[in-house]
């Protein structure tokens, strides 16, 4: 059971994400953005939060064109699992692996606080250890978390049960309160909140732990 965490210049949640993967039992490698391939046998790729390339042009835009992202896209196309958190979510939308885009928060401000999230359908590996409709508390820390997509895309995401997490009290203007979106095969998740920051009882809660445990369970069962 192996995970890889991609590291861009400006990533700053990469080590926290690796700690969370390891705590869930994943053998975890760090992969520099200039790599053109992932290590052999990777099951899950984590795209971490931070400010890749200083958020130049658009958040995640330059990172999405980095050599390693081609390998991440190939991994996803082969049915591999990908978890993008915060800047990682922005990168996944910029690569086109997930629909939509993340715009500036409607209140303009950078928001850093723990927020309630309502868990969507529990039929994805990322949500398998939660109850559908359960409210959990996970920190957010972003400036560009305002999720948007064309109306038909939003309708499809909703109808297909691909909103993995929704804000209980929308902090940033996201359409349909969307905090996290799944790919159509439910193996790619992008989310603005930081589950890796809520995965240790010493550090502000453990509600994020079950996301990693659910993902690990996917491989234990196989």
């Amino acid at each position, binding site marked *: 059971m192996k995970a890889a965490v991609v590291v861009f210049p400006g990533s700053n949640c990469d080590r926290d994400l690796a700690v969370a993967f390891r705590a869930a039992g994943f053998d975890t490698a760090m992969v520099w953005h200039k790599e053109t391939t992932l290590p052999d046998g990777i099951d899950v790729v984590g795209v971490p939060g931070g400010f890749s390339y200083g958020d130049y*042009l*658009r958040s995640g*835009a330059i990172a999405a*064109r980095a050599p390693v992202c081609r390998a991440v896209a190939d991994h996803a196309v082969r049915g591999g699992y990908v978890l993008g958190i915060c800047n990682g979510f922005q990168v996944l*939308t*910029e690569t086109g692996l997930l*629909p*939509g*885009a993340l*715009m*500036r*928060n*409607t*209140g*303009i401000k950078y928001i850093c606080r723990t927020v309630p999230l309502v868990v969507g359908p529990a039929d994805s590996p990322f949500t398998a250890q939660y109850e559908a409709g359960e409210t959990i508390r996970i920190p957010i820390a972003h400036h560009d978390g*305002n999720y*948007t*997509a*064309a109306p038909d895309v939003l309708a499809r995401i909703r109808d297909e049960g691909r909103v993995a997490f929704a804000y209980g009290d929308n902090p940033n*203007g996201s359409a349909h309160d969307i905090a996290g979106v799944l790919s159509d095969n439910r193996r790619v998740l992008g989310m603005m909140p930081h589950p890796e920051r809520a995965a240790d009882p010493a550090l502000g809660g453990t509600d994020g732990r079950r996301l990693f445990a659910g993902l690990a369970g996917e491989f234990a069962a196989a």
Partner: protein
Amino acid sequence: MKARVIVMLKSGVLDPQGEAIRHALGAMGFDRVEGVRQGKVIELDLAEDTTDPEIAEMCERLLANTVIESYRIERV
């Protein structure tokens, strides 16, 4: 040769930064401002024989996120 790419949020997409600028202008007493949209300008220094389709491809693949943004190319 140079080209200038103007990237704007598509009409209909809420522009919170433009709104903030509009508010600030209003607070300064410029009460005739009815709307503000903020975009970006990217200037490209290009080889002489660069074609319009090449510049458009740069816009489509990197310079603009066409989910939310539109772009316009001006040759300078």
